[in-house]
Structures are given as structure tokens and as C-alpha cells.
């Protein structure tokens, strides 16, 4: 009896199942359509235009902007300066904030959470505000200028130089590194450190053999985010408002001052490629890393 019943029942079940999975697929698709439509219409299409635009003739040289970019000293210097500056900022931020973040993650003391708050809440400051804060530190009326005037009778000003940019980028990078490093330390298995110590490892040895390898992916990932953020940081550079050889300022200049759209597009595409690659690397290293431009 069971043999005769089994067949039709099984088939009916299978049919219903297939129908249900069909409907499930449709639901999934419907849920995704609005986001994908928006993305395609307002980002994918425009960015493809931008890609093509970069291949058009540059205003001054008359050849493709991509080619011009690769053959002109001025642009190559900008590219090198931006990359070097961003790398320097990333390394400095990871070293400084990595150290402070590790300290804060591993000690509980009165006022500790206040320090954490001070170090992390500038995370959401836009680049323009950070630029202004650099002026507060190193501008003509800044903290340094006032101190040096009082001590040595002259104003020391750094805000409007590459060093000013370095300080500004450091400012918005530190909170990113602190949050990542503290989370990574919390996730680090404490018994690994205890095991190393039980085997006689000194403080520095534990640091070198256990902690740094343990949080290395987080450090690299946050470093990559700092790099990408610094590469694309427009607001800070714009506020410090100079003719510094920095890609975002170049793009802005080509677009507004010279109406050199092809060059602006080509520079944007190159910059976008670099920041995208850096962030993709960051996500590969630590899956929850997002990063947002300043």
C-alpha cells in the first residue's frame, strides 16, 4: 500500500516545493530591484560616462586624458605626492592609535571611557571641519603660532602646507584606527597571552609573538581604510585651500578653473580605482570594515 501511495504523494510534494521556490526567487528579486535600479541609473550609468570621458582629448595636450595623465610630470608628481602622503598618514595613524587603542582596551581605570569617547567621536567630523581644526592648531592665529610668538617672538604656521594636510588626515584617521584596534583587542583570545606568559614570555615578547600577529589583519585593514580615506579626502584639503599638488584638488581645479572635463574625469577614475582597491583589500582582511570618505 505504501508503495502505491508514495509515488503520487512524492511528486505532489516536489511540485509544490518547486512552485514555492519559484515564488521565493521572485520575492528576492522584487526586494532587490529598487536598490539596483537606483544604483544603475544614478551611479553605474554616470560612472560609465565618466570612464569614457577620461578617454577624450585633454584640453591642453589634445591627446586622450588618460595618456596625458601618464605622460605629464605635473600629474605624476601629484599622484606620487598623494600616495606618499596617504601612506605616511596611514602608517603614523596605525602606529599612534594602535598603541593608544591597545592600552585603552587592556586597562580599566577611572576616566578611561572618557578618553575613549574623546578619541573616537571625531569619527563623524566632515573633512571641512577637520581642516578648520588644523587651522586652529597650526594656522596664523593657531595654538602653535600663539605659543611660538610668546616664546620666540615669531609665528610658526604649518596649516597651509603638506604637513598641515598630514596633521588633518592624521586627525580623522586616529578615531578609525582606535575603534578597530579596540574591537580587535577585545576579540583577541586573552588566554593566548596568558599561555605565552606562563611559558616565560616578557611583556614585549608577548606583544611581538601574540598580540601583533593577532591583531595584524585589523591593523592592515584599518591602515588600508586610512589610506583610501586620505587619498580621497577633499574637504580638508579644500579648507586648507591651497594649490597643493594633491589629486582631489587637481580634479576640482581641472573641472572648475579650466573646464578640462576629460582630465577631471581621468583623474577621478584613477583616484577611484586606487581607493576602491585599497578598501577592497581592507574588506578582505576584516569583513566588517566599511570606511567612508571624509
Amino acid at each position: 500500500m505504501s508503495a502505491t501511495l508514495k509515488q503520487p504523494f512524492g511528486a505532489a510534494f516536489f511540485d509544490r516545493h518547486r512552485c514555492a521556490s519559484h515564488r521565493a526567487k521572485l520575492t528576492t528579486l522584487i526586494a532587490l530591484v529598487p536598490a539596483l535600479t537606483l544604483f544603475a541609473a544614478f551611479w553605474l550609468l554616470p560612472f560609465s560616462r565618466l570612464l569614457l570621458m577620461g578617454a577624450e582629448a585633454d584640453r591642453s595636450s589634445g591627446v586622450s586624458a588618460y595618456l596625458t595623465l601618464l605622460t605629464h610630470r605635473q600629474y605624476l608628481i601629484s599622484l606620487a605626492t598623494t600616495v606618499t602622503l596617504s601612506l605616511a598618514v596611514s602608517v603614523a595613524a596605525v602606529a599612534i592609535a594602535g598603541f593608544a587603542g591597545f592600552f585603552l582596551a587592556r586597562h580599566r581605570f577611572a576616566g578611561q571611557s572618557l578618553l575613549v569617547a574623546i578619541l573616537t567621536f571625531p569619527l563623524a567630523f566632515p573633512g571641512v571641519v577637520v581642516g578648520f581644526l588644523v587651522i586652529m592648531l597650526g594656522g596664523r592665529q593657531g595654538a602653535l603660532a600663539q605659543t611660538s610668538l610668546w616664546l620666540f617672538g615669531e609665528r610658526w604656521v604649518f596649516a597651509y602646507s603638506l604637513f598641515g594636510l598630514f596633521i588633518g588626515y592624521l586627525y580623522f584617521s586616529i578615531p578609525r584606527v582606535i575603534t578597530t584596534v579596540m574591537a580587535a583587542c577585545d576579540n583577541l583570545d586573552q588566554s593566548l597571552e596568558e599561555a605565552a606568559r606562563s611559558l616565560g614570555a616578557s611583556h614585549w615578547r608577548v606583544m611581538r609573538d601574540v598580540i601583533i600577529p593577532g591583531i595584524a589583519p585589523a591593523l592592515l585593514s584599518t591602515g588600508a581604510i586610512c589610506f583610501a580615506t586620505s587619498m580621497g579626502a577633499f574637504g580638508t584639503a579644500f579648507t586648507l585651500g591651497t594649490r597643493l599638488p594633491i589629486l582631489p584638488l587637481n580634479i576640482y581645479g581641472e573641472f572648475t578653473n579650466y573646464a578640462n572635463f576629460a582630465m577631471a574625469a581621468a583623474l577621478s577614475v584613477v583616484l577611484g580605482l586606487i581607493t576602491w582597491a585599497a578598501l577592497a583589500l581592507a574588506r578582505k582582511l576584516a569583513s566588517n570594515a566599511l570606511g567612508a570618505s571624509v
Partner: protein
Amino acid sequence: MSQSSSITLTQCSRTFAGGHVALKPLDLHVEAGETLVLLGPSGCGKTTTLRIISGLERPDPGGRVHFGERDVTALPIEKRDVGMVFQNYALFPNMNVADNITYGLRIQKLSRAEIDRRLAEVLEMVDLKGYAERSIAALSGGQKQRVALARAIAVRPRVLLFDEPLAALDAKLRDRLRLEIGALLRELGITAVYVTHDQDEAMALGDRIAVMQAGRIAQLGTPREIYHQPANAFVADFIGAVNRLEVQTQAADGTFCVPGGTLRAPHLAKAATLYCRPEDIQVVPIEKAQLKGRIIESVFLGQAQQLAVDTGNDTTLSVRVSSRREWPAGSEIGLMIPEQALFQPTAPGARAHG
């Protein structure tokens, strides 16, 4: 090569931030070469005690820790010469098996030849020959714990500390590794403190067991003493199953009137409650029985049959009998308890020490 040393805790208490007392002032002595098991329910302070011994945790002011004659209270863990084995293995994921095991030896700056010799020796001991170059991720849980054990003994520590090393393993593997650890500890003759909440593990491994309850030692003794002469109701309950019989009246000749009949136990003083283990209760024909009752539940366990016998007055006895026979629920049953199987806690109420 360091010698095994005894461990002495004197008035060690531990109060955590917020005033939570994890450990009340505690005295404990572990003989050189002995294996002491700290046994107790979760949160009773076993790990805290172990961490005070290891140096990861300091006792509150006034507490002292001695290894042999030497006061090590102020020494941090890295100077104490202890080997530790953790529940979650705590193997360095960035090093392979050999590098994990030789980590302590490299810190001691031993010669290459000596390191290789010791590596081979401990790999042999934990039965992992041929695994030296494996990465940690490629090991099973049992193998990981063997590597952790090898790493801890490779440095030839003065004492070996275990914090629930088998808790993360499945039952079969746990039994096997337990036997191996027992054999290894005997072979090495090293002082060991072993934390667990599993009574079988405690019985199998401990030369002595300290049963802990809410931050203090409820009883300290050999496994046999702990099982057969528990110091209080908590210990009796925690170690194995136990039956309680409320005494209704007691005669001068050592006869106790309890629900369902009378029992003889002249060796016991005045007692309000008598205790006995389920496996010590015997089934006898009704007419010869000391206690009479009715089976209210009968569960086949394979190696035995577990009966719940109602002897009246809200008293239910748990009895273990052979599973060869059927024991239908609802039937009347006669029981007998040999005098020596009846006991009462040696120290009613709490006592720090046995």
C-alpha cells in the same frame, strides 16, 4: 631542570572590583608530586584559585602563595615556572605545532640541539610523532589539547595547572584523553592542580579532591573519602546521586524510624536525616524488607534499571538495580540498606576544610 614543588596558599581571598567576593580566605596545601583536583559547580571560584596559583591573579592583601619554601606571591606568572593548559587550548595560531611546543624553550634560549631533543621527547609522550610541521588549524580538538599539554610540559615546569582542559571535547575523546593525562601525570610525577566540574574526571585523576562551594572549600580529601564520607549535604549531592531519609524517631539502640520502615545504623549519632547512595540499596522479598514502597517510575538505562520508589510521607528513593529483570511501575517492592551504606555528613553545615 626544575624540581616539582609543593604549593601552599595561606589565607588567599580574592575580591573583584565592585566588591564581589569570588574567593573567601582559603588555605590549601598541595604536596610535591601530587595531583589535586578542584571540583565544583560553575562560578564557585575554581578558576580564580588556579589563577592565584599561576600568578595571573593576585590574592587580596594578606594572602600568600608559596612554592615549596619560596614565597612567590609577588612574582608574575612569567617568573613562576608553571605550565598551563586551558579549556580552549590557547595555541598560537600563527605558529605550527613544533613552534608552539618549543616556544617556552626558545624563550629560555636553550641550544638548538636541546630544543630538538625535547620536542621529540614530548611529541612522543603525547603521541603526536610526525605532526611537528602541521599547522594548528589542521588539528582536531583532541590533538590541539595534546599539543597544548606538550607545550606546557616541554619547559619542565615546577607545577602544572589545568583549567577544564577536556570540557570542549566530546564524550568519547574526553574519556580517552583523561586516561592519557592521568598516565602522563603519574609518569612525570609532577605537582598538578586540575580544575573541573566533572566528577568522573575528578575521581579518575585526583590523588585528592577539593570540592568547592561559593568561594570556599567544602571538603578536601581522597576521592574515596569524598564519595563515601561527604562532609555536608552539598558535597553529597554534588558527587553522585544521593537519597535522603528524614528520621521520624530514633531509638537508643541505633534504630531509626523513617518513612516506609525502620533502619539500623548504630554507628551514627543523633541524626535528623540519613543519606545513602542509590546503588547501595538492595531489593529483598517483601517479608524480609526493612523498607516497603511502591515503584512509581522505572527507567531502563542499559547498564542498570533506575527505579523511583515511593515509601510514603513524600519520600521518594532512587534505587539502581539490575536491568535483566522487568520492574513494572505500580508494583510493591521491599528494600534493605546495609548499615555501613548509611551515612550522615561528617560536618553538618559548612566547614572550610576536611
